[in-house]
């Protein structure tokens, strides 16, 4: 039996990639442990200050809720749309793919100005709370990530045959979508949701321009006054985003684990 071994060049590349991602994080973490008076290690003072700050929790709550709202709206909007496009209007797929690229091309500042103009006549509550205008902007921002993830999911299954099989057995459209199609694209929906969560948790420009206090705005405000504190918030935000993603994965996998395994085996 031959022993498996990894080529030295591969090890070097892996180490380089690991260093690229870990060094800045490690740097921020070490910086966040510095004392204000001496500028040397080590104190957890900044973490304590931040975790006891009401503004931290408030902004975190807003961003997490916004992320969940964006994910919910995106899934509710795009899953049936992409399903129907795959099933009935495959010629529209390239059109959707093109539209999905627009948020990449249009700068956030242009998008905010455009959206503000577009929603000029909207009721006050729409601008008053982040759940209106900001969520709408984030759905647009998340569109490419959600679209390409879901599209890949739909392409990996035989949408036509599964739909027809389900209908011939007496299932209505909603039942077919809910019990047959959705469980088989769950991995794709989860992937789209992760990306959406990450985007919303880090989005600064639109929130700042529309004057909402989201988590990135809080990080920026800390950064302006306390450099060590800002590093601590960065490390915390990294951890929080990962915990949120793992929670999403856990919730999604709980019921969809088998489907995900099967989809992987296709």
């Amino acid at each position, binding site marked *: 039996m031959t022993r498996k071994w990894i080529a030295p060049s591969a090890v070097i590349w892996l180490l380089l990639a690991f260093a690229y991602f870990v060094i800045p994080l490690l740097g921020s973490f070490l910086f966040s442990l510095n004392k204000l008076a001496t500028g040397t290690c080590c104190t957890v003072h900044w973490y304590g200050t931040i975790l006891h700050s009401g503004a931290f929790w408030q902004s975190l709550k807003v961003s997490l809720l916004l992320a969940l709202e964006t994910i919910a709206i995106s899934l509710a909007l795009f899953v049936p749309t992409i399903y129907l496009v795959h099933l009935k209007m495959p010629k529209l797929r390239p059109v959707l793919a093109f539209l999905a690229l627009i948020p990449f091309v249009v700068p956030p500042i242009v998008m905010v100005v455009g959206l503000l103009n577009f929603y000029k006549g909207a009721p006050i509550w729409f601008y008053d709370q982040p759940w209106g205008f900001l969520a709408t902007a984030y759905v647009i921002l998340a569109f490419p990530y959600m679209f390409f993830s879901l599209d890949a999911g739909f392409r990996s*299954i035989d949408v036509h045959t599964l739909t027809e099989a*389900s209908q*011939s*057995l007496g*299932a209505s459209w909603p039942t077919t979508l809910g019990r*047959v199609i959705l469980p088989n694209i769950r991995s794709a929906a989860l992937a789209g949701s992760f990306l959406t969560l990450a985007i919303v948790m880090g989005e600064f420009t639109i929130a700042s321009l529309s004057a909402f206090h989201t988590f990135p705005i809080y990080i920026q405000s800390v950064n302006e006054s306390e450099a060590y504190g800002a590093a601590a918030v960065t490390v915390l935000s990294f951890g929080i985003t990962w915990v949120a993603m793992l929670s999403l994965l856990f919730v999604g996998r709980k019921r969809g684990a088998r489907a995900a395994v*099967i*989809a992987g085996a296709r």
Partner: protein
Amino acid sequence: MAYLELNGLHRNFGAVKALDGIEISLGEGEFLSLLGPSGCGKTTALRLVAGFDQPDAGTIVVDGRDITRTTPSKRDMGMVFQAYSLFPNMTAQQNVEFGLRIRGKDRADRRKRVSDLLELVGLGHAGDRYPHQLSGGMQQRVALARALAIEPRVLLLDEPLSALDAKVRVQLREEIRRIQLEFGITTLYVTHDQEEALSVSDHVAVMYRGRIEQMGAPAEMYSAPATPFVAEFIGTMNRLEATVVDPERGVVETGGVTLTVAAARGKPRGARVLVLIRPETVEVAASNGGGANTVRGEVLTHTFLGPVTRLRIAGAEASLIADMPTARAAALPPGSKVDASLPAEEARLLDLSDEPLPEIAEEPAPAGR
């Protein structure tokens, strides 16, 4: 009284006439195969019956009820697809149970029926397996059990065996027939494989260019093809284009050879006809100077088919295919000069229209949607 009726079904896709006035009448519990080459409209006809597509004209009646505009979910049609169609997120058991859950059957009834059906298709031991853990043949068995679970009014099978290997195909088609007879379920079966259609059906309808060329019992389709297309499509056939030269004695002339064919008597002199002769009825012997109804030629190739060997014979006048017992064929190796004696007296004869004879691929491609 007919249980399933397709009345004047038309379906066009742009300029293409996929179905051009299909008429089918099938009794309860009967098994009809729609047979034809790729693109002949057989799958389109099945999809109209299932409700996945709508006809441009015509009606579909099941048990006296017009279901032409009924949605697929309300038609009670059990369908087995060409592609593997089991729901990947469900076990074999859950797949079979799906239709029963939709119908709100109680748990105990569901479990019993699912278990009975899985036993029926020989998969009682595999109920907990997911589709990706089953072979192609097993998946199609589960799909059959799933279709039968809802006690469908009509069972629709869309080339269910085409993705399987030869041995499993034969085994499974016999099982389908056994189960169909056991349940007495009216069945519509689409295939491009004539052997499959002839071996399991009560009736076979050969389709070509959106029309039914001929419909009848398998033996009738084989022995008495009504059109040149059916003659070509069902089994292997020697087709000799001929001209009637003596209507009183029934003599026709093909490429310099005269044949006496009973069926040619009374045809107009000079009429163009097609003489159809099955290879297994051609008698081949070493050349001894010929005789009546005999074509002289040379053996070109031998094709071993097990108990019989197929000889391709090139004559100066006509080319022929003849099947003869393998033991005797060895005496006539390729290159032998032979006399092929045609049972022309009993041969089938068809009037030849001006329309060119259809070309049929030896192995039709799987039908598209």
